[in-house]
């Protein structure tokens, strides 16, 4: 299916705009450029409203406004009826199908909002005989489902900003739902549900006739209920586990080239502590050295005086002046008794007395000197000893300080090295990422443990149910009256098993087909073919992109690469589903850097060769890199702008 024309009447800012999407021979690429608030997103809303009756991308401002164009509303006279309509003319395999939704409003001047009077939804098509046919309302809605099913419309009409985060926000469950829808196994599922219901009814009937059978049936019903709850829990935890795994991959990828800042900071803190301790010891050594220099600074400078004193002392010792040999008590006694040792009397005032007194005074003086000198002997020896060991002591302390300096220098180099490793990173952000990584790892591990336990519980319940079914079978066998019922139940169970297997097989096949198509499309379009190794969809329907080096990299690739993968997935969905619809992307490169826009521009061009592609750009998005690739190949190009009163959109056709 491709859109040939959109005709908008009184739809929001589109008072009367008709956009033709005629294709070129080779490409089917259509470009609309418009500022914010000039109808780009409302064009997306118009298509959604026409096909499904709602506007999923409506801004908060627009939600306050009536759907009816404001100028039409203001200019309408009291009591007139005004119609809002969006007509989508499409073409599918040569057949033209027109979808038209309209609302009729009654205008009352005393009311802010016009009153909705009538709603119409019509699909017009040509039958096998080329006669025009139309269907309305519910029949028309069912008709839409055949072309672009409502459940999977998010895989056809995109908001480009969401396209970037497509696989971040799309859970395995959403993709699973799409695959389920595309596999068209809902009929089989309904059959399976119906078979289960019939079997249960048969058991219930049998139970009414036998208390034993009723008891077993109730037990089976109870166990099945529990099993269903367990399976729901497993599914829910599976989603949580998958979310956590995705976040872990994303964070690991972010942190791949970033050092573990928390660990480095802890190491740095340890190094700083060691540095502080060693620096303290080193400073103590420096003080020891200062003290040594201070002391020796005194002793060495005064060393010549000590040498002189040593000589003086030696001479006095040699001359027996020290230690002193005079008997001062004898002299004192002579002066008291007045009698010399030779028995001569020593008269007062005599020359003998004067001589003895002089001798006594000289002895007193010399004894002070002798005492002082004697007291100097030991310190002089100690000082000489200190001086003799000074050099070695100084060398020892100097060496120790040098060693500490070297150690401190090494520590400083390590500390600075950590600084340079950490430098340039937003430390708080990285720590936050590490903290989140730990949390998600915990959630992931916890969910795995719980899922494992629940799976074991399910296995137990499966066995118990199987055992109970056997018991039921035996109970039914006992009574001839239940033979028919027994056969019917067995048949129902077998049939249900076969249907379930078919559903599973079909979904697996579709999943595999989408996986293969996505891979082919991605590797065909990607500009860095060697960077990536594989794309696959796992059993939980989570999409994985594998780097050439073997690791999961979906969370870390550039916005343009993510968009390419999303587009590849969408193209694959279209191919496999058979719902060959156009792709419409609002603000397709808003999150893509200028360098990558060129690549994405080329991708758009290539996609447009096989599929209708409608791109709604902001003027700033439509940069040189984009225009270089799309200007020449675009089938149509238009600019939308608002009138001065900002109530209407005017369209300028560039091409």
């Amino acid at each position, binding site marked *: 299916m491709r859109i040939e024309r959109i005709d908008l009447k009184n739809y929001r800012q589109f008072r009367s705009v008709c956009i033709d999407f005629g294709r070129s021979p080779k490409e089917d690429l259509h470009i609309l450029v418009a500022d914010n608030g000039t109808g780009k997103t409302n064009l997306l809303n118009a298509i959604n409203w026409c096909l499904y009756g709602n506007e999923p991308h409506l801004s908060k401002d627009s939600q306050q406004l009536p759907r009816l164009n404001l100028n039409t509303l203001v200019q309408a006279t009291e009591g007139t009826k005004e119609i809002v309509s969006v007509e989508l003319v499409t073409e599918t395999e040569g057949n033209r199908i027109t979808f038209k939704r309209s609302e009729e409003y009654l205008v009352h001047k005393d009311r802010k909002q016009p009153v909705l009077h009538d709603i119409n939804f019509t699909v017009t098509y040509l039958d096998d005989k080329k006669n025009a046919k139309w269907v309305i309302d519910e029949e028309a809605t069912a008709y839409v489902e055949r072309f672009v099913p409502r459940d999977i419309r998010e895989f056809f009409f995109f908001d480009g900003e969401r396209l970037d985060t497509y696989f971040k926000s799309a859970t395995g469950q959403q993709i699973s739902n799409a695959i389920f829808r595309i596999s068209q196994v809902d009929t089989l599922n309904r059959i399976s549900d119906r078979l289960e219901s019939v079997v249960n009814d048969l058991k219930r009937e049998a139970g009414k006739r036998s208390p034993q059978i009723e008891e077993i049936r109730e037990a089976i019903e109870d166990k099945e209920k529990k099993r269903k709850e367990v399976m729901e829990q497993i599914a829910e935890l599976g989603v949580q586990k998958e979310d956590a795994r995705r976040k872990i991959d994303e964070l690991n990828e972010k942190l791949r080239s970033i050092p573990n800042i928390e660990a480095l900071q802890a190491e740095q803190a340890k190094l700083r502590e060691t540095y502080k301790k060693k620096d303290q010891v080193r400073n103590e050594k420096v*003080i020891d050295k*200062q*003290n040594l*220099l*201070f002391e*020796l*600074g*005194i*002793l*060495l*400078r*005064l*060393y*010549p*005086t*000590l040498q*002189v*004193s040593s000589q*003086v*002392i030696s001479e*006095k010792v040699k001359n027996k002046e020290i230690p002193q040999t005079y008997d001062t008590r004898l002299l004192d006694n002579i002066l008291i008794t007045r009698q010399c040792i030779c028995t001569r009397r020593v008269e007062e005032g005599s020359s003998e007395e004067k001589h003895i007194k002089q001798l006594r005074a000289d002895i007193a*003086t010399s004894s*002070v*000197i002798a005492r*002082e*000198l004697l*007291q*100097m002997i*030991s*310190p*002089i020896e*100690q*000082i000489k000893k200190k*001086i003799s060991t*000074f*050099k070695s002591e*100084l060398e020892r302390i100097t060496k120790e300080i040098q060693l500490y300096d070297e150690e401190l220098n090494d520590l400083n180099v390590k500390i600075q090295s950590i600084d340079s490793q950490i430098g340039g990173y937003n430390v708080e952000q990285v720590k936050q990422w590490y903290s989140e990584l730990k949390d998600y790892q915990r959630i992931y591990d916890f969910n795995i443990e719980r899922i494992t336990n629940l799976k074991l519980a399910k296995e137990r319940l499966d066995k118990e149910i199987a055992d109970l079914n056997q018991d039921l079978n035996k109970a039914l066998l006992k009574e001839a009256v239940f033979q028919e019922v027994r056969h019917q139940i067995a048949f129902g169970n077998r049939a249900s098993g076969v249907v379930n297997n078919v559903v599973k097989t079909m979904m697996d096949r579709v999943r595999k087909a989408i996986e293969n198509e996505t891979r082919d499309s991605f590797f065909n379009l990607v500009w860095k073919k060697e960077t990536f190794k594989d794309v696959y969809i796992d059993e939980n329907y989570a999409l994985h992109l594998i780097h050439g080096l073997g690791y999961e990299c979906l969370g870390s690739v550039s916005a343009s690469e993510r968009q390419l993968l999303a587009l590849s997935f969408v193209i694959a969905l279209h191919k496999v589903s058979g719902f060959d619809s156009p792709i419409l992307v609002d603000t397709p490169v808003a999150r893509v850097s200028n360098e990558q826009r060129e690549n994405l521009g080329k991708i758009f061009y290539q996609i447009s060769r096989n599929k209708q592609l409608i791109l709604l750009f902001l003027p700033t998005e439509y940069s040189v890199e984009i225009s270089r690739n799309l200007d020449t190949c675009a089938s149509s190009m238009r600019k939308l702008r608002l009138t001065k009163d900002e109530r209407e959109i005017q369209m300028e056709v560039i091409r």
Partner: protein
Amino acid sequence: MPDRLYIDKEDRPYYQKAEEENILNFKNKNQKEQFLLAMAIGFENSQRRELKTREGFFFSDNLGSEGRTLINALAIREHGSADILADEKKVFDIAEQYASAGIRILADSIDKVQFGKFDKMFEKDLVEMLNLSQ
């Protein structure tokens, strides 16, 4: 008999300067140690200076045997005989005069040497002195 050793009142700022610069851990030395270093430097430079206004610096009891030996040895060397030891005041005067000149020389050296390099220079001088004495 003098019970203390004196410095010139004008010497005080020089001692303070050495403490502020904390050369050779000067600020953590007691006054006797500071005095003896100043005295040794004065002697090394053969400089004595009469004290103008005497200010008690520390008690002679605190000299200890090594301090007293150094002061006595300086006096003997200066006087040329041990007799000087009989006059403690003269012994102290000699020490005080060398210390007064020495602390000025020390302060002057601090000014002349680049900040933080004094200890290194002091160490170098000591090692040279030691090598010469051996």
